Each structure stands twice: as structure tokens, then as C-alpha cells.
């Protein structure tokens, strides 16, 4: 059954290639707002689905691209394990509050949630992948083991590639057990003081796991051994947040259902949601909008209608970069432009994997 579905995909790609047509790889379609506007005929990959293997004691799960993320997370939760990078589960266009996100889209978008700074991002957990490239070849890189340096690490670079190399047919991911204790603390702190505290705490052996700051309120999630969370709580102070309230808060940050991210200005007129990635110690950025800060200070969101140049300049002054994440004009590219050396490598890599530009043309950068 799988081979038939894969064979059908291969046929579609060969036909598109022969006809000179582009394909938009689509799973749940929850992240079409991200990157440049999708182009080409839709290549729906949801039928290639299911968990191919899962061995909790190996800490590895292998799933096909169309597997709903919810199904994967459910299977892991049943064995008290999880994806530590907390990928977002955005609502799709149906707006019924349930996310149609798939495993393939999760890897292709490479987005991680609140625990990113402490637990790592998508690429840190990718162990191997099977790729259908632009020559319609089915290739497997990496594997299902933690340590593997045989050949180039092609599977990890697929994380965040926005599908420009091909269909990520199947992926093996490292998973981790859920820690025994979790506690969220709440502090009232101004932005600069919150950033200072977050960086100072992160230099100490504390079970920090996630942070969010907005409008004078810092939430800090501790996660680890019972004893570690207990002693950190005594050391840090702050007010403990009720577990259910805390869980709703972190889910609303992770899935961007928090009021900050559902701001009606996003996508109306010139206003956009910007993701600014900076060193965690960067001082408050010189931008007019109020930020929403995650990742211990390393990820800062802004809802702003300021011109892209100004936002990028502020990010670059802080030795970071800015991405037009949602809304606004995305025709000129949403990512920060690359240096000439990196741009040349990007173009040649696209050529190496997808010489006829069949897959998601222009989605990551206009010229790719």
C-alpha cells in the first residue's frame, strides 16, 4: 500500500517535471501563510501516513509525512514520551480549533515552541529521512540511531527547508521521556530586567524549560526531577501558577492562540507579525511595537507595520535576523537576505536536489 502511494507520488513528480510544472507540497495546509506565497499544482501528501515504527526504549519514532502531528503526539504521550521541541499546531483554514498539522509540515517548516532554547529545535531531533528529490529519486539519509556521521547530514538540513528539496516522505525523530515534575512561576518584571534575569538564571544549574514575557509579566516553566524543580522554586521566588492555567498558557504560546498572536492588525494593511531571532542577551530592540519574548530572550515577536528595512536593521544591529512571519506583503521574500557566499550555496544546493525547480519554487527565497 505504501509503495503504491509512493509510486503515485513519484509518477506525479515525473509528470510535473516533464511538463515543466511546479508543485506545491501540501500536508495539512496549516502553514501556507509562512514563507512566500505557495505556487504550483498541489501535491497532497497526506495519504502517505502512519507511524512506521516506534520503540520507546530506543527513544526513536519513525513516521510518514502525512501522519497528523496530533496522532504522533498521542502515541508518544501513551508511553510518557514527547517531542521536546514542541512544534506548533496551528489552526487550519477551517477554524474549528483542531490542527491538521502533519509530521512532514512540522519538519519542513522547522518551527519550534517555547522549550526551544533549553531543549533544542526540530533539526536537533531529526535522525534520518527519506526524501523524494526533484529527479524523482527516493533517497534515505541518516537513520534511526542517535549517533551517525556516515556522509553529509542531509536529513537535518531538511528541517526548515520549506520543502524546496523535495517531499520528506518519512522521518525518524529522537524523542524523550516527559520529566516527572513541571511548575510554572510568574514574575512581574520590566523587559530589560526580565532579559537580565533569564540570562542569569540560565547560567545556573536550574531545571529551566521555557519562558515567555509580555507586557511586564514573565512566565518561567521549570521541568525536571521533582527535587530539582522544588529547590529551583525556593531559589527563584515568583508566584506559582495553577497547573491547568499554566498548561493553557504554554499551549497558547506554542500554537499562537495567545491574544498577542491573534491581533486583528496582523494581515490587515501593512501590519505583519515579525519573528526576530537574536542572541538572548540582546537589549530591548529599538522598534516601536511591544514585543512578545520567548526562548530566554532569543526569540522576539513584533506586530508592526514598520517597513521591513527598519525591522531588519534593528535585528541586525542586535546580531540577529528578522522574518516576516505572518501577514503583510511577502512578494519580496520573508527571510533576511543572505550574504553573497551563502546565497550562491543556496542556489547551487537547490540545483543539486531539484534541478528543474519542481518543488515549492520561491517559497524560501524568491530565486530558489
Amino acid at each position, binding site marked *: 500500500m*505504501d*509503495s503504491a502511494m509512493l*509510486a503515485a507520488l*513519484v509518477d506525479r513528480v515525473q509528470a510535473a517535471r516533464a511538463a515543466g510544472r511546479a508543485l506545491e507540497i501540501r500536508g495539512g495546509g496549516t502553514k501556507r501563510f509562512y514563507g512566500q506565497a505557495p505556487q504550483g499544482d498541489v501535491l497532497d501528501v497526506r495519504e502517505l501516513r502512519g507511524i512506521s515504527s516506534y*520503540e*520507546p*526504549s*530506543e*527513544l*526513536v519514532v519513525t513516521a510518514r509525512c502525512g501522519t497528523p502531528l496530533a496522532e504522533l503526539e498521542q502515541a508518544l504521550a501513551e508511553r510518557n*514520551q514527547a517531542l521536546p521541541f514542541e512544534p506548533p499546531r496551528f489552526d487550519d483554514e477551517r477554524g474549528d480549533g483542531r490542527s491538521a498539522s502533519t509530521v512532514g509540515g512540522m519538519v519542513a517548516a522547522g518551527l519550534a515552541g517555547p522549550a526551544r532554547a533549553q531543549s*533544542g529545535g526540530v533539526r*536537533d531531533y531529526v535522525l534520518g529521512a527519506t526524501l523524494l*528529490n526533484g529527479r*524523482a*529519486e*527516493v*533517497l*534515505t539519509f541518516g*537513520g*534511526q*540511531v*542517535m*549517533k*551517525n*556521521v*556516515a*556522509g*553529509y*547530514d*542531509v536529513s*537535518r*538540513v531538511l*528541517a*526548515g*527547508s520549506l520543502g524546496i528539496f523535495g517531499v520528506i516522505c*518519512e522521518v*525518524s525523530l529522537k524523542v524523550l*521521556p516527559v520529566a516527572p515534575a513541571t511548575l510554572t512561576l510568574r514574575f512581574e518584571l520590566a523587559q530589560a530586567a526580565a532579559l537580565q534575569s533569564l540570562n*542569569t538564571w540560565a*547560567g545556573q*544549574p*536550574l531545571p529551566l524549560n521555557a519562558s515567555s514575557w509580555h507586557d511586564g509579566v514573565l512566565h518561567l516553566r521549570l521541568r*525536571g*526531577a521533582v*527535587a*530539582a524543580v522544588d*529547590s529551583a522554586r525556593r531559589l527563584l521566588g515568583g508566584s506559582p501558577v495553577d497547573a491547568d492555567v499554566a498548561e493553557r498558557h504554554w499551549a497558547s504560546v506554542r500554537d499562537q492562540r495567545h491574544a498577542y498572536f491573534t491581533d486583528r492588525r496582523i494581515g490587515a494593511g501593512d501590519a505583519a507579525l515579525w519573528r526576530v*531571532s537574536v*542572541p538572548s542577551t540582546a537589549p530591548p530592540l529599538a522598534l516601536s511595537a511591544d514585543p512578545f519574548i520567548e526562548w530566554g530572550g532569543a526569540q522576539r515577536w513584533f506586530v508592526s507595520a514598520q517597513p521591513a528595512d527598519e525591522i531588519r536593521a534593528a535585528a541586525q544591529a542586535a546580531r540577529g*535576523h528578522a522574518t516576516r512571519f505572518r501577514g503583510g506583503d511577502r512578494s519580496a521574500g520573508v*527571510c533576511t537576505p543572505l550574504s*553573497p557566499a551563502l546565497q550562491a*550555496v*543556496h542556489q*547551487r544546493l537547490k540545483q*543539486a*536536489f531539484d534541478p528543474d525547480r519542481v518543488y515549492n519554487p520561491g517559497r*524560501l*527565497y524568491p530565486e530558489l
Partner: protein
Amino acid sequence: MTLSVPPTAERAARQTELTTALAAVLPPHALLWRSESTVPYECDGLTAYRATPLAVALPETDDQVSAVLRACHRLGVPVVARGAGTGLSGGAMPHPMGLTLSMARFNRIVAIDPLSRTATVQCGVRNLAISEAAQPHGLYYAPDPSSQIACTIGGNVAENAGGVHCLKYGLTLHNVLRVRGFMHDGESVEFGSEALDAPGLDLLSLMIGSEGMLAVAVEVTVRLVPKPQLARCIMASFADLRSAGDAVAAIIGAGIIPAGLEMMDQAMTAVVEDFVHAGYDPDAAAILLCESDGTPEEVDEEIGRMCPVLERSGAVRIEVSADEAQRLRFWSGRKNAFPASGRISPDYLCMDSTIPRKRLAEMLQAIHRMEGVYGLRCCNVFHAGDGNLHPMILFDASNADQLERAEAFGADILETSVRLGGTITGEHGVGVEKLGSMCVQFSPEEREQMQALKAAFDPPGLLNPGKVIPTLRRCAEGGKMHVRRGLLPFPELERF
């Protein structure tokens, strides 16, 4: 194996051409080309493979590195970058018609920032020197390959080096934020950033582990992590290998990620016990070392959870380190596995495959059978937490027949690892040593895709050519059959 090129007039002319070009951009002491001065560079830690380069450059500044690369690019001369030369797969073996680019003089710690918990260091800084510099701030650099006293961060980046703590703390890949360097033509480039990501494709993850084939690194920014207050180690003995393997699965199944989880078989235990007197149980078929680190309360909690799991899995003896001296003694044997092997045998071949942990007993039985087939002894240490196995094949290299049998034994282990769902190298890299085994692990299309990836970074193929990805011809001549690891079962698609 020695790759020698006869000292022809052609080679001499090429050497003159190169040294003349480099003399214009390097001070005289930074350029070696007489054979007595290039001899120390003829191999890395894989001493069985040697070659003499046309010249060795030891640049001291970024501008010199760039100028050397520009000159080699103009002349079409291959460049092999090299750190401390501790690598075990021949990744830094010179090219007989190329330049060896030693980064040894890039040994400066540029900055330690305790607030952002990062260290920016030149690529020739030793792994352990980073942790030593960070120590006053209560921080350290987590990846700890066993060569950490000598190996450099540039070499760690090239190999994606691991260590005994990577189950909990990750590999080089997980602990490096940014690599600055130069492309094959001398153009400057930066992969990653001081933030947690960079725009576009994650080329940093390709650069790490690329064995010097994509670009030359000059400066690396690494993440530092808080030093745990305390570490304690459990030493558990098992009467058979299967129950030791089951114990590893049971610990992880119980939701515990130990700071270290290492196993030694009886043959290895006997060799190291004789060398370091760590107090290992000589009757045990396998010894497991399980480390916990964190606050004292956290460590107590974790040790309290691990001991019963080990008992239930059939541990016949359990000892928990009472103090730091005892903990270090428990580890001393494991850490001395390589030198101890060198003590009982004139030579040893250290293999480095990774297998799914559940296949361990099967793998060790297969290795035991191979000892009979090849007529050589093998002892085993195992990074049990992440499935990385280091079988040490004992032999005498002065006996050509033994060397041949040892290499065949090693290749058999690698092929078996691939068949069991694993990989031919976990942390030592492919280099020149495992080129043949790459034919087993990857299909022709997969290898061609990797060649194309290499060409995207280095179109003329000047950086460390001939390593990592074997040519189609080499695989055809070697007669090795590709083992389909396909994550998906679709044999009918193989012909595409």
C-alpha cells in the same frame, strides 16, 4: 596503506609552483615543504594510512587563510585542513598532490561570555581548553570526546564529535551555534549565528560533520552549559550480555536519561582491570556504568530510581560511587580502554558503528563468531545510551596477513551493523577508512546526491577530495552490495 606519488619532475614542478605562490602570502616560517618537515603531517590518528603533501601551510591570520585558499584555487591544488590530527578515520590524511592546511596556530580563545553562555574560539583551540576557560563562571563545554585533551574544536566540528555524555548533552551539532570560515575560493562565510538560528537553510548542520569537505572553519562559537553540582556513578555487573542490554532499555523505558551510560564486555573488562585496577568484577559478562548528575537532591532521586531498575534487570552486583575519587575510579577503566588495548596487543583497529540498542546482544554474538572466522581477538566497549559500539580488533600490523584479516573483520562488523539497522560510523567519521563501507550503506543515487551537495559548496572539488563519499567506480570495483535501509518498503522503485 601509503598513497605515494613518485618524485617525478612533474610533481617537483607542481610543488615549486605552489610554494612560490604561497611564499608570497605567508611568512617563511608558516610554509613547510621539505620532506623532513612535512613528515609529521603524513597521517592522522589512523596511522595505517599515510601520504606526503606537496606542502604544509600554517597560517596565523584570517587573511592568510583566505590568501592560501585563493592561491590553491587559482592553481587547482587540493587543500586538506587539519587540526590536532587525532581523528581516527584518516579524514586529515594529506593529498599527495595537495596542500595540508594546519590550523594549529589558530589557538586563541576570542571571548567567553558568561551571560550569554557562549565561548567564541579560534578553530585550533583544544576541546578541554574551552571548559577550562569557562570553569571560573561555573560553565563548561559539554561534548567530551576521549581525545579532548588534544583534539581541537575545528576537528570536532569536522567530525561532529561525541563523547560519553552525549545521550543527555548532545553531540557537537547540538552545542555549536556558529562557524565562521572560508569557502574553497577564499571567500568568507558564516554558518549559523549568535542567535538560535540563521536565515535560510540550516547550513550549519551540514557543515558540522562534513569532514572538511565543504568549507574551512577558522572560528567557532559554542554553547556553554552550567556545570552540574554533583555527579555519581553506579557500577553494575551482569552475568550475561542480554540482561545488561535489557537493563539499558529498562532504564530508558523508565523515563530516565542518565548523564552517561556505558558498557564493557568481559574481554574488555579483563584488559582494563589489569591496567587501571578500577575494581571491576572479573566474573561479570558485562559491566554497566550509569552516571547521574545535577543537584545533590536530583542525583539522589535519580540514583534511587535507577538502582531498582538495574536489580530487576538482573544485575548481580551494584556499587554506587560514594565520593568523587571513587566515581573517577569507576570511569578510569572505561576511559583507558584504548590505551589498555594497546598494552596487550601490538596493534588494534578501533571500530565505531552504531546499532539500535535492542540489537546489542545479537551484534556481540556476531562479533564473537567473527573472532573464529578471522582468527583474531576482539574486545568491546559500548556507548550503551546511544548505541555506539567500539569493538577493538587486536592484531599485529607487522604481519601482513593479520592486517588483512583485521580489516576484513572490521568491514564485516560495519556491514553487520548496517544490516541490523545501524550505521558504519557513529562519531569517528568516514575519512578514507570507511569509503568501502559507504557503498554498503548508501545507494548509488544517494551517493551521487551527496557528491552534488559537496559540489554545491565546492564546485571544483578542492577541499579534502577523495574522502567520505566513494565514487561509483570505487563501489563497483569493491564489489560491495548496497544494503537497502529504506525506511519505506518499495523494492520496485529501486530502479528509478
